[in-house]
């Protein structure tokens, strides 16, 4: 079942004079679970943004499910293929939980349906089922800003369940959580994704988690692929090299 879903060919991206990604190539198969690691500024977020179609690469080719990403300009079409989850600031804090979850349906709804739903939530069932899966059913009508960091992360997960894309991208989804909560979210995420055979690409700061929850690790450094290996082949010396400092003064 090694059918490829993402193909990247010589992807490059720079901001003003800063090169964020230089000539990246890799292939990702359907159903793979991938961790993206690397020091600050390595280009993880940039890569995920390109994968999500939020940022456009300067050059190179990006095929999503066999078709170039330019065929996915319409957001509601793209949203069925790819979903993104980041830290809690992805949610609209001033809306109730249920609205944030139902936002995963916006790609399917028209303008008036979404306007009405803002006042009288439609498809409550869908939202309830997703919230139940992440264990937050009782917070359905709570204001999102009142939830703790870990709970907000679960709400974002519930939104993705409602959106139900083929590929799920996550940028440091557990950076601000304590160890217990972080592991909780990661295991929940990998569990839920397995059911539906979705592809998962997650950037992480912690090598420990990357090894524990993901089968393949792609390491970036200075915008290049430093290594791309199955988790069990990643050695401590490789990691030490990956994170080696080039002198603090250079960052900032």
């Amino acid at each position, binding site marked *: 079942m090694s059918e490829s879903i993402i193909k990247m060919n010589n992807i490059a991206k720079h901001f003003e004079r800063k090169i964020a990604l230089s000539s990246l190539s890799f292939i990702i198969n359907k159903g793979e679970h991938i961790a993206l690691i690397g020091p600050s500024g390595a280009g993880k977020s940039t890569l995920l943004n390109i994968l999500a179609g*939020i940022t456009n690469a300067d050059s190179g080719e990006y095929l999503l499910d066999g078709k170039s990403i330019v065929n996915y300009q319409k*957001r509601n079409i793209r949203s069925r293929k790819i979903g993104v989850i980041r830290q809690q600031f*992805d949610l609209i804090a001033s809306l109730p939980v249920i609205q944030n979850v139902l936002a995963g349906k916006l790609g*399917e709804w028209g303008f008036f349906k*979404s306007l009405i739903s*803002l006042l009288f939530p439609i498809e409550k069932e869908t939202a309830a089922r997703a919230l139940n899966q992440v264990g937050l059913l009782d917070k359905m009508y709570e204001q999102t800003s009142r939830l703790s960091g870990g709970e907000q992360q679960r709400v974002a997960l519930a939104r993705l369940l409602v959106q139900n894309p083929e590929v799920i991208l996550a940028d440091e989804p557990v950076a601000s959580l304590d160890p217990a909560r972080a592991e909780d979210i990661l295991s929940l995420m990998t569990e839920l994704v397995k059911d539906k055979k979705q592809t998962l690409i997650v950037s992480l700061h912690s090598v420990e988690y990357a090894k524990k929850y993901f089968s393949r690790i792609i390491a970036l450094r200075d915008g290049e692929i430093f290594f791309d290996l199955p988790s069990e082949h990643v050695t401590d010396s490789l990691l030490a090299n990956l994170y080696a400092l080039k002198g603090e003064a250079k960052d900032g």
Partner: protein
Amino acid sequence: MGKFLYFLTYYKKSLLTLLLILIFVWSLFSVQWNADLLHPGGGVTTKQIFQALLAPDLSPEILILALESTWITLVYAVAGMSIAIILAFFFGILASGVLSTSRFNLFAVSGFFRGILGFTRAIHELVWAWLFVAAIGLSPFAAVFALGIPYGGILGKIFADMLNDIPEEPIKALETAGASKLQTLLYGYLPLVRANIISYVMYRFECSVRSSAIMSFVGLGGLGYQIQLSLSDLQYDEVWTFLFFLIALVVLIDAWSNLLRKRMVL
């Protein structure tokens, strides 16, 4: 030279503050500072005004009149604000450019609407009032429009700025979930600015009450009209009564908006 630039950046804020202070000092030279500034009888008048402050006119007729004028003042303020909010909503969204799809659109449309908002708020509401009275006569609508137009400009600009200052992550997240521009407005921009915009509108409402009070100076009723009549008869005690009603109205709205800000969750 390098050292000089260094000096400039290090002391930039202090230098700017110093410059502002110097400009202020310059303005002080426009006045000849001597006893001549005061009317020979200024002292007497001051005393009379302060005596009246301690003994405002509390006779029933004046109180009823004050209550009535307070109501009219409030009516014009509320009506003016409702027009301002409608103007600000549409013009603010257009001026912020959050709905623009292309870069050209962004600059052309938002530039154009920012220009309109800038013009409407550049002119003081009393000048608008005078223009309207001259054009459509002494109709209550002259007062309502005169309030609504500049306040629409102010609110619209702030609204646009707030929309522009929103962190882009939640909006990006909505977009990746497949939301269209209009849907991001409904599910992202508007809920995110709601609390801020409401507390700003409340603050402006308080200001509009004061503005509505002075609309009378072009002949439109309200508290200012009574204040002006009493002042022209030199009845300082009545003036203070009316002023106390105005202060009470402002304090009430201020208290309301404070409470609301506290109770409203972000």
